[in-house]
């Protein structure tokens, strides 16, 4: 899915008079994803008897897996158009953008289709995350010594 098309779809499903309803849906759905995340951390740290720090990695991977699978099966797109930021801001949005781009572009071939476009939407998150983390890390390392 191209960024322009994606944005047009987001815009099309966003009538201005429903701002409050959108906000409530985003709050509730985002909060539910947060609860699921915490629940997964508790489940993994209890059953695998590992610290919460390690369990959060398992929880993240599980959420990424579920979001990718549901996107591939086709109904995660509908959820995203309903919940919007409630599913885009959590890590599920990252996986969703990658999987939808991958499936969309694989028809154009494995290299220039899938390979070139897999980070089409998620690339900005990685780029600005790395650049800002490097700058802020540098600042903190110089001022506070790590």
């Amino acid at each position, binding site marked *: 899915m191209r960024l322009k098309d994606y944005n047009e779809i987001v815009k099309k499903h966003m009538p201005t008079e429903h701002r409050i309803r959108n906000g409530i849906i*985003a709050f*509730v759905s*985002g909060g539910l994803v947060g609860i699921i995340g*915490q629940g997964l951390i508790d489940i993994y740290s209890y059953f695998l008897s590992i610290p919460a720090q390690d369990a*959060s990695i398992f*929880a993240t991977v599980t959420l990424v897996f579920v979001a990718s699978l549901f996107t591939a099966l086709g109904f995660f797109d509908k959820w995203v158009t309903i919940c919007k*930021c409630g599913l885009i801001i959590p890590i599920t949005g990252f996986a969703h953008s990658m999987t939808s781009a991958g499936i969309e572009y694989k028809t154009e071939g494995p290299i220039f289709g899938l390979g070139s476009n897999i980070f089409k939407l998620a690339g900005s998150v990685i780029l600005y995350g790395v650049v800002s983390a490097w700058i802020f890390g540098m600042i903190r390392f110089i001022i506070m010594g790590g």
Partner: protein
Amino acid sequence: MIYLYSFLFAGAVCLIGQIILDNTKLTAGHITSIFVCIGAFLDIFNIYDKIVTVVGGGAMVPITSFGHLLIHGALAQAERYGFIGLLTGMFNLTASGITAAIIFTFIFSLFFKPKD
């Protein structure tokens, strides 16, 4: 109690994102990028660390934790190896999420066809 905090924090982050999305011309891509930067910024003074200890999973789920984990991995390596650690450790903690997303995307895009 941590579940209530998780709900409130993750919901609040998503609500802020939704308000920005509805009231400005910024797209979802802009908002996620901004939130990652905010997550990294909050870790200069260990603010996000404190949020994570209080909120738990609710703070690990939003994309802000991606920036938080990036800077954390970088600083952990920087303490050991100096400035080069900022480069070597950048993806230490986020590698699991990114690698999982890449692998699952590859597998699923092999087996599933696009649905209009």
